[in-house]
Each structure stands twice: as structure tokens, then as C-alpha cells.
């Protein structure tokens, strides 16, 4: 009894499978026809596409020949993705392409634009081919549109991801470069800060400074913020914290280069800078630091 039930179940499943196959065969058949059509008209469609690209003034950073060469490979990968319905190759190609063209200043809208143009060009050619058979056209478009959209999506996402990767890389580089702790004299460090300070960078700055104080056995630190464009409550508080933490390690901090605008802002928002030693510019700061350390700098002639 049980056996028979299973057999019926199995045959039932087979029936279902068979009917699914029939259903799914139709679009893939259509897709094959579509791919054949695109292969046949490769030269003409490609040229039309390139024409449309220059008409729309996209990819102005590239020469005509370059556009044509890229367009050919994009076209071929496009058709291949349509045919195989796998997008990995295309994704890799998109990433590779992005790597090459991002440094030349190609924008996201251009990349998305050309892919959408190709989609439109191909769709037009389909309209032209099947204009007499409206039903067939509809079915072809049913097969074409999802695949085409997916391709556009893949290329755009690939480009944006590559771009973001580049940006991340640059941010990292800036972060590493931007916090030098320099020794100018025995036991005197300077820390020139340039650019925007966000909480993460402020933290890193403080850590690096504290480590620098320890390894250089510094007694005085001059923090120069001439290169800091703007300062808000958070950043000011970070600065105060850095000063206090340095003091806990036995180092005196002198802050230099507060611009009039920043001074105004700080007074207006009421940040307590009473704990800070401030001097107008870096030179004054270093001179004061030298006094604190007991140095006296004078011209050789004067000393004689």
C-alpha cells in the first residue's frame, strides 16, 4: 500500500516537472533566438550604440577608438550574459573596466547611461524585427527585459563598488598620512593637524600622540591646528581631552594656530579652553616650549 503511494507521488512529481519544463523552455528558446539576432546584427547595432553614446556626450574623457573598443567588448559580454544567464564574467569585466576608467574621471551616470543606451538600442532593434508579430514581440521582450535589467544592474553595481573601494583606499591612505608626531628638539614634539577631524581621527590622533610622548620621553608638545578649517563642540572637546591625557603622562601641551574664526566659534559655543595653553602661531608655540624646557635660542653673533 505504502509502496504504491510513493510511486504515484513520484510519477506525480515527474508530471509536474515535465509541465514546468515545457513552460520554461519557451523563454529560453526565445532568448536563444534573441541572442542569434544580436549576433547577426552585431556590427550594425554596435555602431548605432557608439553613435548614440557620442550623441549623448557620454564618456567624453575617452577617445572615439577607445569607446569603440570598449563598446565591442561590452556588447560581446552583454550578449554572452544574455545567452548563458550567468553574470559573473560580466561582473568581473565591469569591475575590470571600472578599474581602468575611474582614474580617467568617468562618472557613475555615464556608465549607467551607456548600459541603458545599449538596452534601448537592442530593444529598438527587436521592435523593428518583430513589428509584424506583436505577440511574438511581447514574448521576446518578456524574456529580454528582466535579463537586460539585471545586466544593467550588475554593471552599475560593479562600477559603484569599485568606486567605493577606491574611496575607501584613499581614506585609509589619508588617515595614515595625516597624523605625524614629530620631534623637533630633545623632549619637544610637534603635532601639526591638517584637515577635518572626526571622532575616529581624533581618537587615533590622541593615541598616536600619547605613544609618541612615551617613546620620545617628551615634556612639551605643540599641537598646531592652523590647518584645521572648522571646529565644533565635539572636536574642541577632543582637543581638551588630548591635552588632559598628555598632562597625565607628564607632558605640557601648547595649542597654536587657532584662527580668529575658530576662536570666535569656541567662545560663542562656550567650550572651556581654560585648561589649555594657547599661543598665536607655531613659531610662538615652539619658542614658549623652548622656554619651558630651559632652552635659549640666540644668533651666534649675539652670543659672542
Amino acid at each position, binding site marked *: 500500500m505504502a509502496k504504491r503511494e510513493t510511486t504515484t507521488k513520484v510519477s506525480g512529481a515527474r508530471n509536474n516537472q515535465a509541465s514546468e519544463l515545457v513552460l520554461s523552455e519557451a523563454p529560453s528558446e526565445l532568448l536563444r533566438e534573441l541572442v542569434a539576432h544580436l549576433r547577426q546584427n552585431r556590427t550594425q547595432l554596435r555602431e548605432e550604440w557608439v553613435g548614440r553614446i557620442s550623441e549623448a556626450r557620454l564618456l567624453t574623457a575617452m577617445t572615439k577608438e577607445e569607446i569603440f573598443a570598449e563598446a565591442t567588448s561590452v556588447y560581446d559580454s552583454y550578449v554572452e550574459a544574455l545567452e548563458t544567464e550567468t553574470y559573473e564574467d560580466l561582473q568581473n569585466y565591469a569591475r575590470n573596466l571600472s578599474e581602468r576608467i575611474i582614474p580617467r574621471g568617468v562618472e557613475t551616470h555615464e556608465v549607467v547611461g551607456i548600459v541603458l543606451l545599449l538596452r534601448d538600442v537592442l530593444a529598438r532593434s527587436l521592435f523593428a524585427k518583430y513589428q509584424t508579430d506583436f505577440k511574438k514581440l511581447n514574448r521576446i521582450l518578456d524574456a529580454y527585459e528582466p535579463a537586460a535589467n539585471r545586466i544593467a544592474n550588475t554593471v552599475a553595481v560593479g562600477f559603484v563598488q569599485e568606486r567605493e573601494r577606491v574611496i575607501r583606499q584613499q581614506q585609509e591612505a589619508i588617515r595614515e598620512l595625516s597624523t605625524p608626531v614629530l620631534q623637533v628638539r630633545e623632549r619637544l614634539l610637534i603635532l601639526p593637524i591638517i584637515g577635518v577631524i572626526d571622532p575616529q581621527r581624533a581618537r587615533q590622533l590622541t593615541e598616536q600622540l600619547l605613544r609618541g*610622548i612615551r617613546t620620545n620621553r617628551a615634556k612639551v608638545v605643540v599641537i598646531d591646528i592652523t590647518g584645521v578649517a572648522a571646529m565644533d563642540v565635539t572636536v574642541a572637546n577632543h582637543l581638551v581631552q588630548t591635552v588632559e591625557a*598628555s598632562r*597625565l603622562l607628564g607632558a605640557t601641551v601648547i595649542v597654536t594656530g587657532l584662527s580668529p574664526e575658530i576662536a570666535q566659534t569656541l567662545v560663542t559655543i562656550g567650550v572651556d579652553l581654560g585648561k589649555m595653553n594657547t599661543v598665536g602661531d607655531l613659531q610662538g608655540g615652539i619658542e614658549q616650549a623652548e622656554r619651558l624646557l630651559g632652552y635659549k635660542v640666540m644668533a651666534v653673533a649675539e652670543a659672542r
Partner: protein
Amino acid sequence: MEVPILKQGQVLIATFQAALSDADLENLRRGLLQQVVRFRSRGVIVDVTAMDVMDSFASRTLREIAHMIRLRGAETVIVGIQPEVAFAMVQLGMTLEGVATALDLEEGLAYLIERFKNID
């Protein structure tokens, strides 16, 4: 764990060997005060190099010790605060205000000797 207090000329040196319990800190406070009185010390160095965490009680006690010793006419220096500890303390608002600090024992001693010179 007891904190040993060493006498070096006019200076007392208390070196933390490990993290301390609240009771140990209380003992340290009492011990330091007594010794300052007994030896007529002019300076005290508290070396916290071995501490890799500093809670608010420890920080407050250190501050109190420094202020009490000042009332006895002596000077206190806290030395050897680790960079990470300093950063954490500042973030928690424990900044030991009004207390002298130095990088390590050597610096602390140099600071005190300088102070004595100025006073004399």
C-alpha cells in the same frame, strides 16, 4: 596586596605592583600620610606603571592623597600612567586636576628636585 613605601632622601616612593583593591588603596593612603609625618618628607612619588586599569575610586583616592599630602606641606607626583589608561581616564572625566604628573620615576624625581630648589 600591600604597597611598599620606600624612603629616598626627602622623597617617599610608593610603587604599585598590581591592580589594587579598595582596601589596599585606603591602606596606602593611611601609610603614606603617616610616613610623610614621620620622616618629614618633602615629596611623594606614586608610581602606577603596573596599573593597566584605573577605576574612578583609585583615581579619586590618588587625588585625595595628593591634596592631603599638600596640606602637610609636601608635594606629590603621580608617575607612569600608561597611554591607554590616560586616554580612558580622560574619557571618563577623571583628570587628576591639581595633581602633578610625570612620565616615569626618573622624571618624577627630577620634577621634585626642581621644585625643592625653587622653594629653597
